[in-house]
């Protein structure tokens, strides 16, 4: 295209563009050539089990970890040469909190904002606004150390917003939190998405991915196994319904029910039957004299997609 304005738009509407991206630690290949494109306004997810390479990828995108090979552009710039400029415009929530626990909630936000070159008065105002957003105003001048895990996580997220980032990278934002704390965080992330912030989230919770992500990739062993919206992935790699038959561990090979479904998965304690009609499959199994400890008919989830793609469960 010859119109320069159009070129600029097309460049800036793709916030992250990776081609054949790799990361090695010594001889170990943590990321083995992945292609990713994230557009402005999107909520994009990396779903995968422990060691899949999610954090390694996030750290390359956040320009703290140099890539080993492949192409990477973040906000249209190359992290190798423009790291500081990119980092000035993104927000990062690392997997492990790195707050200054000997400072107060307010001081953490102010100090961090200063690193982005914001003036003292600007960080004062911003800290107040962000404590409001993260529901931490009543703890403003309390030291961080004794705060609960959920509060620390909220503060880390608030801190990542201090520079009004174009792109927010969240590495397992809710791991280790209780359900109530997770829902509060999801609500905050949802608001950010509504306000137009582009989100990249890693998680090994399928419900989190389904709740928050417009589009995601399933990652395993440093590679991308599949890509799409949660609905697309489920339609493509699973059936409408799943019949779960629970047995005492090791007492079921799945042979008696194999022909009752399009596909089955045999796990240590249960057999999953992928079918468009779970109730019918259950009736057929009963008619054959199969007697599970319990049974359940449910809709397919990303967990099933993952199982199909990798032969393993996500959270074990």
């Amino acid at each position, binding site marked *: 295209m010859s119109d320069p304005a159009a070129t600029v738009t097309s460049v800036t509407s793709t916030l992250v563009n990776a081609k054949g991206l790799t990361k090695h630690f010594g001889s170990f290949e943590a990321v083995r050539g992945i292609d990713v494109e994230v557009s402005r306004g999107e909520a994009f997810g990396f779903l995968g089990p422990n060691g899949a390479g999610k954090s390694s990828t996030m750290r390359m995108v956040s320009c703290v970890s140099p890539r080993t090979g492949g192409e990477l552009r973040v906000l249209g710039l190359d992290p190798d040469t423009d790291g500081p400029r990119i980092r*000035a*415009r993104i927000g990062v929530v690392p997997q492990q909190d*790195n707050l*200054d626990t000997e400072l107060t909630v307010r001081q953490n936000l102010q100090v*961090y904002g200063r690193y982005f070159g*914001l003036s003292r008065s600007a960080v004062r105002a911003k800290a107040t606004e962000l404590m409001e957003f993260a529901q931490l105003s009543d703890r403003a001048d309390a030291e961080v150390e004794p705060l609960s895990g959920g509060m620390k996580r909220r503060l880390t997220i608030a801190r990542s917003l201090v*520079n009004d980032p174009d792109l927010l990278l969240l590495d397992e934002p809710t791991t280790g939190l209780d359900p109530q704390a997770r829902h509060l965080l999801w609500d905050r992330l949802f608001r950010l998405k509504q306000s137009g912030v582009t989100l990249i989230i890693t998680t090994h919770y399928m419900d989190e991915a389904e709740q928050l992500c417009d589009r995601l990739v399933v990652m395993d062993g440093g590679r991308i196994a599949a890509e799409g919206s949660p609905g697309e992935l489920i339609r493509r790699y699973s059936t409408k319904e799943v019949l779960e038959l629970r047995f005492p561990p090791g007492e079921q090979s799945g042979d008696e029910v194999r022909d009752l479904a399009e596909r089955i998965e045999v796990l240590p304690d249960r057999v999953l039957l992928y079918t468009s009609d779970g109730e019918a499959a259950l009736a057929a199994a009963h008619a054959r004299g199969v007697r599970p400890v319990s049974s359940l008919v449910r809709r397919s989830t990303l967990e099933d997609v993952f199982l199909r793609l990798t032969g393993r469960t996500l959270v074990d």
Partner: protein
Amino acid sequence: MSTHVVSPWRAPLIAVEHHWTWYRRNWRATVISNFLQPVLFLLAMGVGFGSQVREGEATGGHPYLVYLAPALLVITAVQNAVFESTWAVFSAFKWQRTYLAAVATPITPAQVLHGQLLWIALRLVTGTAVFLLIAVALGAISSPMAVLAVPFAALAGMAFSAPAVAFTATREKPDSFNAIFRFLVMPMTLFTGGFFPLSQLPAWIHPLAWLTPVWHGIELARGATFGTLRLLPALGHVAYLSALVALGVLLGRRYFRRRLAV
């Protein structure tokens, strides 16, 4: 956009501001080791033990307290540099992980190092200055030229600190820090002419003493205080100490990058 990449000159100052925010809350905990301990030392060695020491050639014709004070200024600076360059830096990598937070901003690993060293230098200058005032109040120092001992002591402290910070950046565990204090810093402060002239020690120890920043710092601080410092040796001492600082900064930049950009 209200944010931008801060200049390489301003970035370390922002890191210093971070340290200062911490210090404002926690300075009380540093008072005992930074001030009280050296003052107790000055009283015990200078006034107590020193009353048994005759003035003479060995003490440059000065009372022992007066002979000791400028050297103790240097020794205090180096000892204060130890904790700030090992445990504090290690914590920022491993426990508090504040460095990891900083390098996710436009700040670079090298700038984090520069900020850390600048902060340690500020601590050494202010700590030594306060110690000087106390020594004056105790009658241990009277020469106005002793003011020069403050930057000399801080320089000696940094000549130890910069390489020590670089070393700390390579550590995965804090095991070696106590050994550094016991087997490097203690001998370095005891056998480098501070408490008694180097000439009292066997000749083979002298070259070892000349390698230490403490010996150079004591030569400078004492020479300035007693007006016996000559230009050429002074330049030599400053050059050697500066070279150690430069070496520490160069190694530190490499190790900070290796540690923080993985």
